[in-house]
């Protein structure tokens, strides 16, 4: 069979044992492809475990720039004996299985429709390095060299990435180069290369960066002026805290005194973490926490307090597979309803849905302004895929002319001016019709502006009251404040000039990558579908107009119960019959193929119904 050369379009998966140092070798491999200017999407599919369980690192290379997952593995590098059979089964027909041939592969593992390339990785490593741990680590670099040669990567680029990786431990660089050469030479001496899957430099990545969403969220909080972070460790959100701390150490230490312009508190649990944030923002600092679904469940009590007492909070929820402990290291968009309506009683909370690392940065910044402006909790809803995987992204951008919007906070002078006019400060008094009251920060004035914050029912002057009419006035104002929120939330993104057909597709967050690719695929098939990416809740006029325009809507999301569809129906009074779903919830990011198949099915069903 004639093999057609495929350039810059492949999926390669590394199958490793976690805790063996494979992640950093695989990341260097991905970064080298990125530096060759080829669009690349790495995904780490890892276990909730420290050492000894299977972990996969999947890299999609797409010259067209598609950054979603693609099914069908062209090359599998299998160095985990625990899952050999499953790994071999997962290779697409005509693909390659690259394995450690230090031990012979049993005949039962031989598939006739795929190609096998054996490299004695651990033997080579043991022959060249003494200590067991070093042998293990360099085995990874040996396969990087071998695979890079097989797909014709630029070895100099890999060397440059290695040099960058170890710039603080330069002694390790020559040893890594040596391991790389071991892999390269083994291929050159034993196999014909390159394979039909090849990479060629195209310099298509412009000024893009390769970064994970959690790092960008942490940086966004720093740029937004957050000074207090309180948090409790939980996958997949922990690296937001790490990022905040790491960059604070670089950017927020006073050079003269060596003292910190931030407080970074690892709380005893999520309840305390959000309590600390509420205490800090009540006292006039910008503060935030990050967590995942189980943490949000624990925070529900305080979320209600922040809503009712109108205290700004920024909470970043990096979703993982639920319910309960669920799949801690798998991705889902399954906290849509529990975030939007978190806590008991009538509550709702503005939510932001970033889809790229650059947007993680921008929307984290926006969350602080919105929380202060609206005096309420604002949730940034990311997910494990966005938070923990590297994504090619536009660079992070800050407008140096931007000023923080700290909202309606009265100064001592303003309090005195109010007093001189004979007016009384009312913490929960709507003074200008937007339903957002003024607030004061403790310590502002010796005798003016103090009030009592409480989670119990209160009047316009923060006094306790159980009178029905007082309660109604307050909660109805909160409902009106929600209407104000609708006018200032970030706008949705549309992918067409004006509305074209009669089907509208709606998606948000990381589903975007696959959805954008699916649009091209459908367009190739002549299917016209208009698309909207929602970035925020509550839904503004633009979202409402879009859903009202189309006869048929399809919401693509990554949970079982079509939660975003429910949210749209609940908030926008849509006829449920006209809104369908394409769902993916196995914990692995959705693909364009799944979306196209799902939509075709929906169109078919609809055609039959008509």
């Amino acid at each position, binding site marked *: 069979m004639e093999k057609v050369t495929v350039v810059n379009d492949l999926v390669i998966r590394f199958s490793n044992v976690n805790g063996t140092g494979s992640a950093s070798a695989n990341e260097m491999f991905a970064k080298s492809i990125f530096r060759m200017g080829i669009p690349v999407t790495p995904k780490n599919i890892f276990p909730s475990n420290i050492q000894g369980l299977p972990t996969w690192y999947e890299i999609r290379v797409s010259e067209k720039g598609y950054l979603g997952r693609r099914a069908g593995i062209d090359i599998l590098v299998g160095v985990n004996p625990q899952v050999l059979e499953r790994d071999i089964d997962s290779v697409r027909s005509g693909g390659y299985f690259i394995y450690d041939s230090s031990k012979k592969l049993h005949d039962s593992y031989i598939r006739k429709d795929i190609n096998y390339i054996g490299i004695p990785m651990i033997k080579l490593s043991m022959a060249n390095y003494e200590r067991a741990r070093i042998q293990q680590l360099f085995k990874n670099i040996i396969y990087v060299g071998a695979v890079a040669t097989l797909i014709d990567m630029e070895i100099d680029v890999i060397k440059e990435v290695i040099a960058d990786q170890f710039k603080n431990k330069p002694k390790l660089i020559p040893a890594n180069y040596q391991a790389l050469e071991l892999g390269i030479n083994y291929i050159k001496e034993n196999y014909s290369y390159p394979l039909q899957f090849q990479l060629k430099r195209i310099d298509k990545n412009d000024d893009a960066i390769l970064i994970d969403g959690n790092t960008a969220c942490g940086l966004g909080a720093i740029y937004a002026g957050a000074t207090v972070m309180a948090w409790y460790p939980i996958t997949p959100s922990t690296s937001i805290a790490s990022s905040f701390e790491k960059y604070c150490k670089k950017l*927020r230490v006073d050079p003269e005194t060596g003292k910190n312009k931030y407080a970074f508190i690892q709380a005893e649990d999520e309840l305390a973490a959000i309590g600390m944030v509420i205490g800090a923002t009540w006292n006039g600092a910008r503060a935030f926490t990050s967590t995942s679904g189980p943490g949000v469940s624990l925070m529900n009590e*305080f979320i209600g307090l922040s809503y009712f007492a109108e205290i700004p909070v920024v909470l970043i929820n990096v979703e993982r597979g639920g319910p309960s402990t669920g799949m801690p290291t798998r991705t889902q968009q399954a906290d849509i309803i529990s975030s939007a309506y978190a806590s008991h009683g009538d509550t709702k909370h503005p939510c932001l849905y970033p889809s790229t690392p650059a947007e993680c940065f921008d929307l984290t910044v926006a969350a602080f302004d919105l929380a202060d402006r609206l005096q309420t909790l604002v949730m940034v809803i990311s997910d494990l895929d966005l938070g923990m995987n590297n994504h090619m992204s536009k660079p992070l951008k800050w407008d140096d002319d931007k000023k923080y919007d700290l909202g309606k906070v009265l100064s001592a002078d303003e309090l005195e001016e109010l007093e001189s006019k004979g007016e009384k400060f009312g913490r929960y008094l709507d003074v200008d019709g937007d339903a957002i009251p003024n607030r004061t920060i*403790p*310590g502002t004035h010796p005798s003016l502006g*103090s009030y009592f914050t409480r989670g119990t029912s209160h009047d316009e002057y923060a006094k306790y009251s159980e009178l029905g009419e007082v309660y109604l006035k307050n909660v109805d104002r909160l409902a009106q404040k929600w209407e104000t929120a609708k006018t200032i939330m970030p706008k949705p993104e549309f992918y067409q000039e004006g509305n074209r057909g009669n089907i509208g597709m709606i998606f948000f967050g990381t589903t975007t990558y696959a959805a954008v690719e699916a649009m091209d695929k459908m367009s190739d098939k002549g299917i016209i579908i208009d698309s909207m990416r929602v970035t925020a809740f509550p839904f503004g006029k633009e979202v409402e107009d879009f859903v009202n325009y189309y006869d048929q809507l399809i919401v693509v999301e990554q949970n079982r119960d079509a939660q975003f569809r429910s949210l749209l129906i609940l908030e926008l009074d849509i006829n449920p019959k006209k809104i369908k779903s394409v769902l993916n919830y196995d914990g692995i990011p959705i693909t364009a193929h799944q979306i196209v198949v799902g939509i075709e099915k929906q169109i078919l069903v609809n055609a039959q119904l008509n």
Partner: protein
Amino acid sequence: MSYLKPKFHHPSLKPNKVGFIKSDYEGVISTLCAGCGHDSISGAIIQACYETSIEPHKLAKLSGIGCSSKTPTYFLSNSHGFNSVHGRMPSITTGANMANKDLIYLGVSGDGDTAAIGMGQFVHAIRRNLNMVYIVMNNGCYGLTKGQDSATADFGSISKAGSSNPYPGIDLCGLALELNATFVGRSFSGDKTQLVPMIKAAMAHPGFAFLDVISPCVTFNNNKGSTRSYSHVRAHIEETSLFDFVPHQDEITVDYDEGTVTKLELFDGSSIHLSKLAPEWDPTDRFSAVNRLHAAKSKGNVLTGLYYIDVESEDLHVKINTVDKPLNKLTQEELCPGQSQLDVINDSFR
């Protein structure tokens, strides 16, 4: 329902050093039961703040949920207050303190709010040596829900309904000592002479100052057989010392017998004067404090007074090395690194 008090006061009442009269430190009229120990503690807080000339806006009062946690509305109306959720006052106070290190944080809690639902946050606030005064108004029962035993109720104490508590009580002072709290004391709501200077000293202490104040519940736990009734506590009080607090501005005016007074200097120049009643106890030695407490308990007594103080206490801000300026006063210019730094960061991801 809260009532506003009339603002009239006797013309002879003197303003303090910052120009406030005592009624400026009061709150609305209490809605607690007549005779509630908590109201006496509120009174002691008012007196302590007035006498030490604290500007009302330089103090924030915080609480959880319960009878005790209602009291912050009954004192210091000119201070910001925060009645948070059940058992969560410590986390709110931690955040508030992180935002502004320049205020005094007065946390009020109860035995249910601290020893049961709030135990987790209580112990961690101690562990961090958060700079705050933490007062537990301890009556051994849940008043607002009609008198159930709390976790601090003594073993064998008889409830109003007549049942004997089958569980050992949690001694919050003993726990605080075990957790290395830097200021630990117990007092009695009926002993203002001791309580007022202890609150003053607690406010001057740079770290976690814990005051467990036995405060009888007149409605649900003042019956015969209760170990938290007024009569039982009065009959079983044993003091560690005669206690006085001397602010740094003041001359020492208290007359003590030569040789019996221990003077402890606090970081701000103020001092604590103790006339010790037990020679084997040293208030700066945690072990001796623990022994002193156990000795009193073995006799069935309620030990009041200062138990322990770490005069070299370093609070959370010192531990995490924050700047001198309160974090909530830092400006955008001081906090935002700007695009030039972001360019460098972007480059590190290429």
